[in-house]
C-alpha cells in the first residue's frame, strides 16, 4: 500500500477545512482546533495554501506532535498530524 493510500485510510478525530484561506489562516485554524483533538488523536487538515504544507509539519514538530504526511488533491492538500 502506498503512503498516500495509507493516509487516505486514516480516520481522523478532527477535520479542519481551511481551503480558501490564505497564510496564516490555515495554521491558525490548526492551532485553534488542536484543543479538540484527544491525546493520540488525529487531525486531518485541508488547505489550498501551498505554504501551509511547509508550516504545519514544522509547527507540529515544534509542538511535539507527529506529522504523518500529506497528499495532493485537485486544488488542495490533505495533511495529517497525530497529537
Amino acid at each position: 500500500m502506498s503512503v498516500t493510500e495509507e493516509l487516505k485510510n486514516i480516520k481522523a478525530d478532527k477535520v479542519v477545512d481551511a481551503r480558501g484561506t490564505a497564510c496564516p489562516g490555515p495554521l491558525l485554524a490548526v492551532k485553534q482546533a488542536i484543543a479538540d483533538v484527544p491525546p493520540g488523536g488525529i487531525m486531518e487538515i485541508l488547505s489550498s495554501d501551498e505554504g501551509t504544507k511547509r508550516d504545519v509539519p514544522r509547527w507540529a514538530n515544534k509542538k511535539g506532535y507527529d506529522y504523518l504526511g500529506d497528499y495532493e488533491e485537485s486544488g488542495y492538500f490533505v495533511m495529517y498530524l497525530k497529537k
Partner: protein
Amino acid sequence: MTIALFSGSVDKLTAAGVILGGAAAEDMEVEIFVLLQAAFAFKKENAMVNDRVAEITDKKDDFLASLQRLNTPHWTQAFKNAKEMTNVKIHICGFAGKVWHGEKLDDFIDLADNICGIGEYIASAEEANINLFI
C-alpha cells in the same frame, strides 16, 4: 517579539498582521509599539476607511482586490485574532497620538491597550529575541 510599527499603510499593516498570525501560532508574546503614521491608522475614525498603500502604489487597486480574493482579513481583524490567541500588547506612542490629535486611549480602536512613552519600547526591545521595524 517586539514590533516598532511605524507604517500607517494597509500593505504594511497587513504584513504585520500576517507576522502576528505566525507569532500567535507559536504562542509568542508580542509587544507592538504604534509610532507616528501607524497611530493615524489606529485612530477610530481612520482604521476601517484608510486604504493607503506605501509601495507599488500604481497597483493599489490590484493589491486590494487580491486581498479580497484571497479572503485576507482586514489588518484590524488579523490583529484581533492574534490578540485572542496569544499575549499581544499594543501600545500607542503618546507623541504619535498627539500628532494625530489622539490624546487619550479612547481615541484609538479597541485593540490598543495603553498609551506609552518610548522608554517602554526600548526596555521591551532590550529583552526581546526578535525586534521588527515595520
